[in-house]
């Protein structure tokens, strides 16, 4: 039976990027539907009535939502180039750090973006501490998945894109080679991978987007 795969995403969503990376690694063909979240399409609302968010993967008409759930689904359905480790314990560890990334890294990076002065310095300290915990999971491997990109690399992949953009906006290094040497090397290896490097959203557009998102928070700080 011919497989029909559709991905609902926005041009900038880091969570959707995870699915893009996974589909590319597995060598899967799919149709992309770009959504404008201010006017969601009827299809998106039909396929994700609960959260009404992207990404949504639709496989032969059946929708799967939530990026980490989608990653597991892709890995279980298409067996080539496995993403998750086979061993249940290693799998559990990978899932744990992916969740940690979503909960702690995302929020600590966001705090760096929307603060200034002393508050920003403190936010940077916290972000670096959290990034150090992630770095420890690399040990002496090229990727979190070992010699090849795996689930955890894809789960963290958005940090590679977003951190670079953030550093440019605040004109400061967050992941520098001295403080986070392994993570720094990983970011370069991940970015340079032929599967990954063509998938990044347009950098200039991302910088403008995050500068605009930052404005109201900075204005609020100034008026306080």
């Amino acid at each position, binding site marked *: 039976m011919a497989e029909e795969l559709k991905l609902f995403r926005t041009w900038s969503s880091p969570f959707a990027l995870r699915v893009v990376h996974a589909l590319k690694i597995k060598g899967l063909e799919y149709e992309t539907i770009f959504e404008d979240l201010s006017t969601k399409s009827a299809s998106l609302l039909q396929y994700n009535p609960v959260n009404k968010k992207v990404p949504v993967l639709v*496989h032969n008409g059946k929708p*799967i939502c939530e990026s980490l*759930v989608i990653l597991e*689904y892709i890995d279980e359905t298409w067996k080539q180039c496995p993403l998750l480790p086979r061993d249940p314990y290693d799998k559990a560890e990978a*899932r744990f750090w992916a969740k940690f990334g979503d909960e702690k890294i995302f929020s600590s990076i966001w705090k760096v973006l929307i603060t200034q002065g002393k508050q920003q310095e403190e936010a940077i300290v916290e972000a670096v501490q959290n990034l150090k915990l992630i770095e420890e999971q690399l040990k002496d491997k090229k990727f979190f998945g070992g010699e090849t990109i795996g689930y955890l690399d894809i789960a963290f992949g958005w940090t590679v894109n977003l951190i670079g953009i953030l550093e440019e906006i605040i004109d400061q290094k967050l992941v520098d080679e001295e403080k986070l040497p392994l993570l720094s090397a990983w970011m370069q290896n991940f970015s340079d991978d032929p599967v990954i490097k063509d998938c990044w959203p347009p950098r200039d557009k991302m910088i403008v987007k995050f500068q605009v998102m930052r404005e109201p928070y900075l204005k609020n700080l100034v008026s306080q």
Partner: protein
Amino acid sequence: MAPEKELVQLIGFWGSPYVLSVRWALKLKGIEYEYHEENLLKKSPLLLQYNPVYKKVPVLLHNGKPLVESLMIIQYIDETWKQNPLQPQDPYERAKTLFWAKFAHEKCIAPMVSSFFKIGEEQEKCVKEACEHLRTLESALEEGKRFFGGETIGFVDIAAAWMGCWARIIEEILSVKLIDEEKMPRLIAWFSNVVEVPALKECMPPTQNLLEHNIKFRKFLVAAAERLQSVPLTGN
């Protein structure tokens, strides 16, 4: 060749519903384990060693290797011990199960629990959010089915059906309404179907003990909030 001796240990707290859900999974799989009760006011070096990131219970130790976060622990149990599967075999059905377990935890249980830690307007906001998502969960349950996935108990049941009991306790202590008898009949039936399963009922801490413990806990939280605000509060 004789199977390697498995050592399974659970670090928990008697009043934690997350620990309960792991106990339920272990019970359904028929896994023997040692239980270590934690004093959450004075966390043991064991807990801090095995869950340094979050410092919380439950922690499952399997042959000395730690696993944390209740949903992930239950997934691990299901993937390691194959008897009485908790998750469906089909990848699409598994994805649906994982989605709803996460939804129940993040959208229903999390605001419910948050409301217990808050006062005034912030508390109202959490209660409203929990109710809205409980109505969504209600619509995900199928009419006439005993458990979330059908006639056999599974992942979502273990992960989340305990919330009925805790919701009632929160309602009583905070004088709020979370479970609407008219709008949530399927949820109410589901809660009861799951906790009445004899193997699971055996593991439930007595409701009276939970109530007493949480009344004391709430008093402690309110006093702490009052100290922060330096204004005495009335009500719950």
